[in-house]
């Protein structure tokens, strides 16, 4: 383990992930700055969800290093990583709320599990978290009684339960209408401004990128195609980046001969 650059919360070096023969992440390296919103951007199948799983410790890479606050998490055992995890909040795609519990109980759960706070204090904290995400008065509701946007907000309240240093979002706008998605993006920006958290958002939604990103890491076919500021991304002349930003479809990669061989099974 070695100390990394203190301006960066997360540093990834030569990360490789392989599922069988298929290499998903091809020796990628990048850094995520402290207290900023970083968007991991890329098309479907580019490896961004796999990368997120590595960052939050759900998946071990084939090789490479992930330094979080200077400590390599790829060599940590489960107990050591659990200490790191307490400083992380994650909003999963489906919000991952427990359906048999009310919103209050969902948000209180991490506090009850990981702290020795009195229940009276926890109740106040839960109401603060729900208010933070615009869900004041919904504490007694069950997840099934909420709209998609409200579920995501409730998921953020729970992710914020232990005042994390890092907040990870997996496709936050997936399945939401544009107005609800914009409201969620605004909330993400506010969270960074007030709490100075390091926020990492995995998405392929361009309007979200333009609204929330301070920094962008763009993945393409398992490689880092771009890492830099949003302004630099917009100004990039790289053909693959332009295609993505201008929503142009990929050109046919097969030659007619290759296509024939493929469908004929030769």
């Amino acid at each position, binding site marked *: 383990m070695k100390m990394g650059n203190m301006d960066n919360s997360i540093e990834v070096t030569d990360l490789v992930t392989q599922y069988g023969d298929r290499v998903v992440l091809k020796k990628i390296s990048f850094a995520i700055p402290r207290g900023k919103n970083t968007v991991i951007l890329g098309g479907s199948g580019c490896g961004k969800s796999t990368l997120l799983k590595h960052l939050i410790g759900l998946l071990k890479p084939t090789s490479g290093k992930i330094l979080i606050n200077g400590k390599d998490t790829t060599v940590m055992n489960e107990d050591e990583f659990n200490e790191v995890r307490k400083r992380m909040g994650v909003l999963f795609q489906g919000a991952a709320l427990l359906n048999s519990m009310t919103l209050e109980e969902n948000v209180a759960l991490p506090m009850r599990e990981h702290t020795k706070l009195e229940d009276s*204090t926890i109740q106040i*904290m839960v109401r603060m978290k729900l208010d933070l995400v615009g869900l004041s008065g919904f504490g007694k509701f069950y997840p099934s009684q909420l709209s998609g946007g409200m579920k995501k907000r409730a998921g953020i309240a729970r992710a914020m339960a*232990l005042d994390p240093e890092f907040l990870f979002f997996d496709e936050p706008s997936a399945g939401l209408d544009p107005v609800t998605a914009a409201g969620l993006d605004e909330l993400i920006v506010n969270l960074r401004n007030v709490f100075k958290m390091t926020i990492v958002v995995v998405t392929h939604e361009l309007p979200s990128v333009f609204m929330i990103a301070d920094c962008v890491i763009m993945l393409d076919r398992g490689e880092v195609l771009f890492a830099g500021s949003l302004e630099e991304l917009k100004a990039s002349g790289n053909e693959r980046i332009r295609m993505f930003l201008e929503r142009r479809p990929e050109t046919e990669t097969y030659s007619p001969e290759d296509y024939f061989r493929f469908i004929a099974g030769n």
Partner: protein
Amino acid sequence: MKIEIADNKGMRVIAISGDIDMYTSPELRKELMHLVQKKITPLYVDFRGVSYIDSSGIATFVEGLKGMMGYGGKMKLVCIPERIMEIFSFAKLDKVFEIHGTMSDAVNS
């Protein structure tokens, strides 16, 4: 976190230094609720040495203030560092608590 409680000519000051977080808030709650049970008023809280406060710390003060309101008590927060003041403002609590820049302002208010 360190808590010092001083009794200066009947003026009760609780001075906190360090981080008020999920680990230290229960200790702060214990001290605060002890003073609330004794129906102390006004209670001055000196924030000068506080380096960090999280939502559990804020909730602890809310709980303390709620307890004091039961007997018409006043809690005066003094010398809150700018960074921590931002959090009080965001939580819309800057209007709920009585907040003063200096101890003499708090005493004369």
